[in-house]
């Protein structure tokens, strides 16, 4: 799948005077002895698809958790559309749609009910609710399967349902943690298509994490390469590759910036949290 060139805007160029969708300023977070996020700075401009790219354990999920107000920043600051995540978590949450890395549908509820639950929790008024739920399911192509229990869904359908749960809020910022992990290539391509469609048609800003280099290459306007809690390089995939020389892949760029200790990331904990919840469906 090649990168569609349908979006008429200058990717990543800051809107003059505009408030960035995400702004991290020397963000830091440690779990006991593990420095999960280390002086992370980046900005995401409205309308852009921004990727945090890095191996397991790089600190991507921790960064996302701070931005979604699930963890308070220990150092530095983070703003979403100018709102401080520490001071106004509720306002930040209202602007977000978040799809966590792990399985986040309720297998005991139908597809419709899974979206309905979030429609209520996002405080969508009763008279708009049914239409919004329908829209969200329609957008991810699950309108026909809406009455079925989520436990009967395939892996790709579950991922799309998770997307619908986040979309029902019509978020200004969509946060996707490893959106295609554990999916087969066809389902992965399908999820890519839907993300791009959202950005095109609904002027949404997307912040995603991935450890698939091709995914970052295909989807993202700009990427931040993350390794051991730090951002090692930042730019559009084309820029980053060009800087290294002709014919370089994003993987080469990564090796260049992260050194050769790429493979040792991945303790049992990371393997477990990465795989957890994937085998449960289909």
């Amino acid at each position, binding site marked *: 799948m090649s990168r569609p060139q349908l979006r008429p805007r200058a990717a990543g160029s800051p809107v003059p005077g505009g*408030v960035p969708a995400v702004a991290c300023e020397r963000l830091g977070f440690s779990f006991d002895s593990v420095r999960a996020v280390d002086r992370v700075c980046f900005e995401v401009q409205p309308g852009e698809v921004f990727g945090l790219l890095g191996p397991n354990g790089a600190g991507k999920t921790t960064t996302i958790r701070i931005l979604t107000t699930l963890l308070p920043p220990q150092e530095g600051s983070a703003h979403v559309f100018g709102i401080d995540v520490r001071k106004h978590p509720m306002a930040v949450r209202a602007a977000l749609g978040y799809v966590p890395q792990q399985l986040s549908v309720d297998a005991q509820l139908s597809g419709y009910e899974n979206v309905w639950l979030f429609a209520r929790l*996002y405080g*969508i008024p009763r008279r708009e609710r049914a239409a919004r739920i329908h829209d969200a399911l329609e957008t991810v192509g699950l309108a026909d399967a809406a009455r079925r229990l989520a436990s009967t869904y395939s892996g790709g359908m579950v991922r799309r349902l998770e997307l619908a749960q986040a979309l029902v809020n019509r978020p200004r910022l969509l946060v996707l943690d490893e959106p295609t992990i554990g999916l087969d290539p066809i389902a992965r391509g399908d999820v890519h298509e839907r993300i791009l469609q959202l950005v095109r048609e609904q002027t949404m800003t997307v912040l995603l994490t991935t450890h698939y280099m091709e995914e970052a290459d295909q989807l993202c306007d700009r990427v931040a390469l993350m390794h051991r809690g730090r951002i090692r390089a930042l730019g559009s995939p084309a820029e980053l590759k060009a800087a290294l020389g002709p014919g370089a892949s994003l993987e080469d760029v990564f090796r260049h910036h992260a050194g050769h200790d790429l493979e040792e990331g991945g303790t049992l904990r990371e393997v477990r949290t990465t795989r957890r*919840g994937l085998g449960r469906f289909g």
Partner: protein
Amino acid sequence: MRSVPRAAVSGVSVEGPSSPPSPWLSFPERALTFCLAELRRIRHDRTELYTRAVQPALWLLIFGKTFSHLRSIPTAGLPYLDYLAPGIMAQSALFIAIFYGITIIWERDFGMLTKLLATPTPRSALVTGKAFAAGVRGISQVVIVILLSAILGVTLDYNLLHLLGAVAVILLGSAFFSTLSMAIAGIVLTRERLMGIGQAITMPLFFASNALYPVSLMPRWLQAIGFANPLSYEVDALRGLLLGLPTSLGTDFVALVVAAFAGVTTASLLVGRLAR
């Protein structure tokens, strides 16, 4: 929630989410969401309703019938089976509530809890909602024990107001025990440990209450526990409502409301630990 500086929010004018001014205004609606979701889950899978009927049936049939013959327990002149029925009602709701924290650990092990906590839902609304969702399951036990009682010839008071009162008592009692369970979940963080603790405290809670016999029969040190045990107030209120015994309903309700409130507060503070 304080208001957000206007200038800070008006970055890009997208037809933004039409969110209500304050998430606290819609607290009851958000809490209710979890109860409605629980009802839908029950509707999709009714097996638990049936399997949950087995225990109270055994208690009433075997324990109740046997002790009816012994006549060793002072029951204010009632047949022992009648005296026991409200106790078993509260007990089986307790068994559901005390393990309810497992659902929250389950939701955490998958990504559901993080997704829920990333919505503009105050943690206390989530905890309150889950607490009463446990009560929704507990109410099924009211129905089961009433049906069993009818079969066994127990004469309960079927006055609608009293039945509604019993439902309220079960909701409050379940709210306390399920928030206790969620608070423990927030501390121990794993299903295995919560199961272990749940199992360790269920029977003591049950025996150190007036579910099977009046507190006055217990040794003095156990009486102290019996009086501090919300289950005793739950059973007392149920006996007052369903058997017409002269119990102190007012005190019972106050005790249950205070216990439920304390439970929700404690669990709300601890449940965030599960998002770490």
